[in-house]
């Protein structure tokens, strides 16, 4: 009994340490930053102190929230489309050897293109509205999902697939009972990458075209030399990205529980 509580206590200590250690380092860096700006007297336009950023954040909060909702909405839309179409492409490519040989190398080639540089192209194609930015973000975040999913679908244990044939499983049964669970870890690592890519895609799009959104806010702040404003917007952007990432992680945990249960 005492050993049980002892290990439980040790586990609690480890869990606390896992939170406290990185948090402590973060706070230490912020303190150092604050002290450095105070000691060197660097102008706020170049590098505002954390305290200055915080007060700017509080002041701009309603404004930032409005812009974050615009950006966040586009990000979620782009991520959703990218996830769905990435999975669809992966299923299509994995369905036949011919399609795989025809499409997969092209897909990998596309992946290599520095897609960020193509943002202006989407303005020409689709104008300056939200659809243009969403399409661009889908374009940026689609490939990680498709490639990870294709990889995962190909990874199903061949002997287990043979067992499925031996016990007369239908292709649909084999797909759901074996291929999907083998693919899930790959799919979710692709989705995690895609969630950050979608944020990047939307913000880059906003740099190019928008009249609202956090990218727009950053450009505007930059034109007024509002450096603290830029940092505040960056913080808001992190929250958007973090929220989406957290949703993906939660979905992964749920999917794993479901397939294991």
């Amino acid at each position: 009994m005492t050993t049980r509580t002892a290990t439980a206590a040790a586990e609690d200590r480890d869990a606390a340490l896992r939170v406290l250690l990185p948090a402590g380092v973060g706070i230490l860096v912020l303190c150092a930053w604050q002290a450095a700006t105070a000691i060197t007297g660097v102008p706020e336009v170049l590098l505002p102190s954390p305290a200055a950023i915080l007060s700017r954040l509080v002041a701009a909060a309603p404004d930032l929230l409005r812009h974050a909702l615009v950006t966040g909405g586009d990000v979620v839309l782009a991520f959703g489309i990218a996830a769905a179409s990435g999975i669809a492409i992966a299923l299509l490519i994995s369905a036949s050897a011919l399609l795989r040989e025809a499409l997969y190398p092209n897909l990998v080639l596309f992946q290599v293109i520095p897609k960020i540089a193509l943002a202006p192209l989407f303005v020409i194609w689709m104008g300056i509205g939200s659809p243009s930015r969403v399409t661009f973000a889908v374009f940026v975040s689609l490939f990680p999902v498709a490639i990870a999913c294709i990889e995962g679908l190909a990874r199903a244990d061949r002997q287990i697939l043979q067992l499925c044939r031996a016990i007369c499983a239908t292709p649909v049964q084999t797909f759901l009972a074996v291929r999907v669970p083998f693919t899930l870890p790959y799919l979710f690592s692709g989705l995690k990458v895609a969630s950050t890519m979608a944020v990047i895609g939307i913000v880059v799009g906003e740099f190019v075209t928008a009249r609202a959104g956090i990218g727009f806010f950053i450009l505007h702040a930059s034109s007024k030399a509002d450096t603290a404003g830029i940092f505040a917007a960056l913080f808001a952007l992190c929250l958007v990205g973090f929220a989406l990432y957290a949703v993906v992680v939660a979905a992964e945990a749920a999917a794993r529980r479901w397939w294991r249960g």
Partner: protein
Amino acid sequence: MTDGTIHATHVRKIYETRTDRIEAVAGVSFTAKKGEFIAILGPSGCGKSTLLMMCAGLETITEGSILLDGRPVTGPRPTTGIMFQDSTLLPWKTVLDNVLFPAKIQGRDMAKARRHAQELIELVGLKGFEGKRPHELSGGMRQRTAICRALVTDPDILLMDEPFSALDAITRDEMNEALLAIWETQVKTALFVTHSIREAVFLADRVLVMTRRPARIVEDLAIPFARPRPPGIQESVEFNRICGHLRGLIEPPRPGRAAPAPVPEMAAE
């Protein structure tokens, strides 16, 4: 009621690859009666797995025919149980769910399957491990789970491709005893592919000896021991005489190498 006979006539298998044609099995014929345990023994690469896979309907038959229960094999058959060298368990499923997997896939009565699975799990000595996942089990326990999975649908034919060859010698002996115990309680026709002469003689009613590729059957030897077989028979003179005889068939004395001195009992053969 099925009878579970296996009837192979002039079975041939040629693998066509891009570069050449490999004849893996050359005209094999044999018959297994209902409830008979047959071991297929032969050197590595001779075509034993190919023959078993053809019986399972997982590999096409180039020439000849295999009848299971009187019907020609055209593809996998739900009432054939199968075991591979690897346990091929689903890593995210528990022991019980792995055992139940074929029953679930085939849409069987799950309440009945669950009871049967529980019995089998007890019989192979896995009681208490039903909720564990494969990574928490030893290699032997994983193969025990695979035995239960092969039997959960109550097949009339059981096909096994070197199921214990990845295990250490001690675990292997245990598994052989477990398999015999379980097989002696249920009537199943069994085909058991192995490299191990002792394993074949200990388990089987008949041993089919295959040659190097392309595989033919060079001997069909009945094993005279009564059942149930105690593990102790492996020390008997008769057991070792049979093993020696089979070894002679599989490893013929090569030219340029002195033939091994014949064991005295072998001379009587």
